[in-house]
């Protein structure tokens, strides 16, 4: 198609069409003009702009009713002209502007928009949009004079009405877009002239008149039906904050003085329409806006589409940035929005929130602007007050956002947390809320039911199998979502990070002791507080001023641990099996540190301890199990916090934990095992075994003391078993001491506790066999030799010469002494300990035999002595076990026949009885033991050959 470049040519082409259109205003004629316009170059058209526009405008202006299709095509034509040309005249712009607006007004003029077709509306809106873009340079600003206020106002209300009331998404979007252009905030690619300060202020003044209308209408759009699509909401939000920023910007308001811009006479009528943005006006507007903002925030932060939430974050960002002074009332809502969205599911929103929060925090607006800090602490207070109610009523998603909000507020408050929490009311509410939220569900029977079977070999598991910080999965009464727990965890840690540790620990310790109802939750909170205080696993916006010193932490942890491992909190009834011991335990409570803690213990006794409950319910047992688990997890946490420093606390903690590792309740034993691993890692031991070995002296102490208490004997023997299983011969001198305690305890309770002690004894003698007879290391070459000898001569009767043995021992002692002499100074206990075993000058055990017995043999002998008595126990299990032990004893003692033989002799009658008339099982076992006898007993007494008459 030919293109007419020069205006003359173009004029020639266009003139007839225009004339035709002026005469007869039909759609066809408009279309003809439109067609001809295609052939005209842009520059030519620019020259002829007014000429071409004339017939079109004329068509619009003709009085009387017009057909919609005509209007539509005319407007379309105008749009196409304007899109390629620019408006250079102020009058033309204003006239076109009002003419276009009029297209949509209803004939009555009062009720815009007119009930026109959607196409027409869309076309007109687009035309307006194009018009605004085609305005040349400064010309556009002429539209923003007080004198044009009515025109603008009309356009604004028209567009708002369209945005609000239309059904079609397209129209809504177009109207909003157009409004955006109208307030000079267009974000399109085209070049817009940036406004200078004065101009901006002028526009601000002007739009102040529209602010109420725009904001109310937009808030209605934003909070409208979700079905309108997220795009509409997003642009409405954008428009909202742009408008607010334009009018309420702190920067502008600061320059406005009381008596500025007196209305001049001739414009007085119009000037009345212009708002003077004085402080009063700002105040009242901010109040009203605050309501709207609140509404928008509430709605948008729960909007399912992430872009809406993103836009909300943007809103907060801009308003906080530009209007934080004028909108101080709304800052609370704004912060709430962004803080609540910090943990949004969408990563974009999250990172944006973080960015904004960080920028707010960096600005120190919160910390220095008293108002903001007040707002936050007020928020915190009301939130803490509402939290319990919300936790009851909201769904998990709602709870999640509520807690996010709490966390965010705390984070924003930062170091001010400690000041806020100095207020008793705040702390009280917050802690009570946490207590309620963290309430565990203790109805599960399985927790109580599940037992641990078999020996606790799990301790030997490799370190990697358990991860730190996992803990047992807990079931809460008020929520299921794991994320909620993580949030609460963060809340506690942030509290610990910023708060006054002493105050908080004291407070929660108070709750811990106040009632069984709070105990578990308080312990959970305490664990996290400490973790937070150490700065571990917390995500914060600004650094605290002073970190808690390790010494303080250690002190706090020590006192918490003391409380955790206190009798009343550590030995709880967790199963009905132990009911027999529970009454003994109750008695124990009264002897809790009878002398040393006189003042303290009275309060403990009086507090209703769950274990003193004579009839434990499933619920209370479940609760007790959880309490122990949480406390165990606490130990792990504290170890993690203190690292190697925790080694010092092992004195008091290791024993209780190891004790729980052998607990019969599966959950407890699992948790305790996990704790052992945590402790082990924190203290820098390479394996749990190493941990136990290096601290066996502490354990021995615990065992020995607990053996003195009837109720704790089973625990003590369990710990000893675990120790023996995980240790080696170097442990013997230490254990020897305790074994004497075990034996004397056994002597006191032959009747009812034999079975629990037999477990230890059998582990013990098995360990002795392993350490001294079936040798692994090179520490006991003498035994190894004999062992080989024994193996070679297996099946036949071995006859080691007594003298040989004696000579060997003498040599051994000599060598040992030489070795000792070479040691420069025995600095370590271990060395000293190793030097121990056979020291003739101090050995009082050698009194009866001519050769002094080494320690392990003496132990075996002592154990065997007890076995003789127990062989006739009335319990089948005990008898079987005794036979096991007996066999091991014989193996250990076989090298010391001077001692073995008399013992064997004494045991014989009882053994024979077992063979003759007992349960078949026992007979079988006894027969095996007797075989052992035959293998190891060197010279058999005559009656050995004829066991049964």
């Amino acid at each position, binding site marked *: 198609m030919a293109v007419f470049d020069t205006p003359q040519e173009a004029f020639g082409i266009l003139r007839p069409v225009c004339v035709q259109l002026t005469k007869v205003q039909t759609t066809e004629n408009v279309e003809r003009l439109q067609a001809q316009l295609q052939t005209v170059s842009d520059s030519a058209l620019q020259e002829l702009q007014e000429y071409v526009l004339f017939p079109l405008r004329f068509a619009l202006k003709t009085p009387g009713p017009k057909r919609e299709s005509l209007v539509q095509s005319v407007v379309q034509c105008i749009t196409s002209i304007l899109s390629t040309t620019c408006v250079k005249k102020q009058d033309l712009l204003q006239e076109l502007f009002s003419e276009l607006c009029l297209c949509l007004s209803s004939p009555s003029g009062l009720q815009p928009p007119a009930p026109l077709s959607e196409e027409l509306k869309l076309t007109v809106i687009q035309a307006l949009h194009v018009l605004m873009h085609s305005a040349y340079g400064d010309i556009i600003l002429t539209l923003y004079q007080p004198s044009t206020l009515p025109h603008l106002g009309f356009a604004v209300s028209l567009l708002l009405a369209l945005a609000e009331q239309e059904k079609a998404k397209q129209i809504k979007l177009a109207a909003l877009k157009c409004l955006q252009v109208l307030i000079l905030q267009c974000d399109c690619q085209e070049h817009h002239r940036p406004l200078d300060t004065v101009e901006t202020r002028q526009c601000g003044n002007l739009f102040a008149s529209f602010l109420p209308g725009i904001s109310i209408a937009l808030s209605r759009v934003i909070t409208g039906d979700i079905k309108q699509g997220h795009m509409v909401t997003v642009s409405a939000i954008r428009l909202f904050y742009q408008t607010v920023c334009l009018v309420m910007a702190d920067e502008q308001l600061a320059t406005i003085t009381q008596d500025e811009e007196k209305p001049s006479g001739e414009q007085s009528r119009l000037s009345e329409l212009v708002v003077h943005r004085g402080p009063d006006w700002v105040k009242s507007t901010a109040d009203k806006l605050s309501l709207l903002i609140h509404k928008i925030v509430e709605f948008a932060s729960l909007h399912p589409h992430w872009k809406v939430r993103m836009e909300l974050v943007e809103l907060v960002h801009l308003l906080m940035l530009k209007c934080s002074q004028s909108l101080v009332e709304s800052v609370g809502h704004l912060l709430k929005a962004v803080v609540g969205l910090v943990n949004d599911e969408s990563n974009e929103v999250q990172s944006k929130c973080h960015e904004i929060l960080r920028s707010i925090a960096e600005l120190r607006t919160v910390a220095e602007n008293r108002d903001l800090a007040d707002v936050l602490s007020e928020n915190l207070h009301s939130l803490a007050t509402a939290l319990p109610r919300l936790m009851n009523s909201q769904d998990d998603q709602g709870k999640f956002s509520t807690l996010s909000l709490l966390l965010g507020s705390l984070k924003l408050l930062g170091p001010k947390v400690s000041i806020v929490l100095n207020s008793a009311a705040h702390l009280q509410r917050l802690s009570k809320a946490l207590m309620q939220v963290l309430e565990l569900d203790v109805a599960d029977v399985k927790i109580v039911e599940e037992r641990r079977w078999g020996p606790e070999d799990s301790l030997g598991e490799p370190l990697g199998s358990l991860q730190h910080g996992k803990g047992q999965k807990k079931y809460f009464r008020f929520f299921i979502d794991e994320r909620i727990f993580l949030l609460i965890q963060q809340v506690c840690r942030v509290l610990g990070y910023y708060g006054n540790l002493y105050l908080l620990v004291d407070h929660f310790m108070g709750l811990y002791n106040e009632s069984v109802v709070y105990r578990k939750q308080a312990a959970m909170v305490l664990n996290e507080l400490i973790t937070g205080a150490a700065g571990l696993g917390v995500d914060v916006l600004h650094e605290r001023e002073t970190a808690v010193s390790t010494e303080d932490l250690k002190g706090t942890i020590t006192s918490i641990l003391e409380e955790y491992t206190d009798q009343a909190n550590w030995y709880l009834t967790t199963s009905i099996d132990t009911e027999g011991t529970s009454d003994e335990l109750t008695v124990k409570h*009264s*002897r809790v*540190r*009878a*002398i*040393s*803690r*006189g*003042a303290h213990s009275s309060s403990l006794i009086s507090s209703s301890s769950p274990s003193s409950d004579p009839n434990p319910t499933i619920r209370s047992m479940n609760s007790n199990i959880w309490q122990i688990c949480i406390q165990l997890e606490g130990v792990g946490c504290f170890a993690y916090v203190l690292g190697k420093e925790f*080694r*010092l606390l092992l*004195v008091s903690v290791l024993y209780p934990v190891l004790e729980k590792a052998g607990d019969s309740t599966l959950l407890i034993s699992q948790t305790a095992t996990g704790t052992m691993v945590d402790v082990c890692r924190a203290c820098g031991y390479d394996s749990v075994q190493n941990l136990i070995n290096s601290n066996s*002296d*502490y354990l*021995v*102490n615990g065992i*020995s*003391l607990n053996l*003195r*208490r009837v109720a704790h004997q089973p625990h003590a023997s369990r710990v000893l078993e675990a120790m023996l299983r995980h240790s080696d011969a170097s442990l013997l*001198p*230490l254990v020897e*001491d305790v074994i*004497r305690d075990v034996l*004397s305890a056994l002597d006191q309770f032959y009747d009812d506790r034999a079975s629990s002690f037999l477990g230890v004894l059998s582990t013990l003698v098995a360990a002795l066999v392993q350490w001294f007879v079936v040798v692994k290391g090179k520490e006991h070459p003498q035994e190894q030799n004999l062992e080989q000898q024994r193996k070679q001569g297996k099946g036949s009767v071995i006859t080691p010469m007594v003298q040989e043995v004696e000579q060997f021992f003498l040599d051994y002692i000599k060598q040992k002494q030489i070795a000792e002499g070479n040691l420069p*100074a*025995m*600095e*370590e*206990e271990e060395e*000293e*300990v190793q030097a*121990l075993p056979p020291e003739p000058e*101090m050995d009082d055990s050698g009194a009866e035999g001519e050769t002094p017995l080494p320690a392990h043999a003496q132990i075996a002998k002592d154990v065997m002595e007890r076995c003789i008595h127990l062989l006739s126990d009335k319990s089948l299990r005990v008898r079987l076990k005794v036979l096991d032990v007996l066999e091991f004893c014989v193996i250990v003692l076989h090298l010391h026949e001077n001692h073995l033989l008399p013992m064997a002799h004494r045991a014989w009658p009882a053994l024979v009885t077992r063979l003759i008339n007992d349960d078949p099982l026992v007979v079988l076992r006894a027969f095996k033991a007797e075989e052992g006898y035959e293998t190891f007993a060197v010279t058999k007494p005559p009656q050995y050959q004829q066991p049964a008459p």
Partner: protein
Amino acid sequence: MALPPPDPQFVLRGTSAEVHTLHFYCGGQEPDYPILFSGSSNGLIHVWNLKTRRVDTILDGHGGKSVYWVEAIYGRDRLLSQGRNQKICLWDLAEGRNTVTDSVFTENVGFCKCSLLKVAQGHWLMAMPGKDLDEVQVLELPSKTSVCTLKPEADAKPGMPMSLKLWQPDFGSCPFLLAGYEDGSVILWNLSGGKILSRLACHQEPVMSLDFDSEKTKGVSGSSEEVLTVWSLDEQQNLKVQKTHKLVNAGIADVAIRQDKKILATAGWDHRIRIFGWKKLKPLAILDYHTATVHCVSFSDHSRPSERLLAAGSKDHRISIWSIYNQTSGALHCPLETRKPD
């Protein structure tokens, strides 16, 4: 029902020999931890770190012969120890050293423990059994010069000194020595004149141990019989029996009055530690843990009363540490145990 007695706070193991003597040192400031010195029958001195409850150092300087007295001098860096090899050693423990820097040879072969008294900054008096069986010698430390030799008159025949206690009424005044003898008498010596001021026959059997409270000027002594005697010293420097307490089982190996003069602990041959109120000798508790004779008891001098401990060493190789009656509120109003030991 009276409350049952408590268990030890913890037990120190690993001396692998009978424990004959104990001495606390808690004087250090915070980073320093309280320590306990123990001397045992195998001639070793163990330095226990009471924070970790483990042995820090082992000192071997008495040739495998029993150590039956240890005391810190010059803070924690110097230690005096007396052993059955007839030597009193001065140890240098500063900066991880553990060497004997000086020693005194005692010609006595008895069991009598020395007694140390600080008379001035850097000056001590040490009473030790002398060359003759019934003689007590007092040395000035660190110069090791003999201050005096206290020998009873020939006709007195109190036998060997069994236990010694140097004391002075006020800091700087003339020191006195209280000595318990084999014949069961306690003699008050004036060091300046080397004269006997008073002699009190308070036991039928040798005086195994004694302790003296210089504030109330009264002391307590235990012997191998079943009587604990409290005697006082009046203004005329006369010793008088004030009260005796009959025990069920005979034999008191050691007595110790706590620094705050509130309670008294005794080490019994019957394996038990007994606690009495010092004011009226009211029995407060019987601490039953050891499985053999208790050889010694000692109270710590920790600056915080709540951390003052009692340690007892026994023939069963263990040292038990007790935390008792150390709450500051601590009126000793509740007698804990009135049960008779069997």
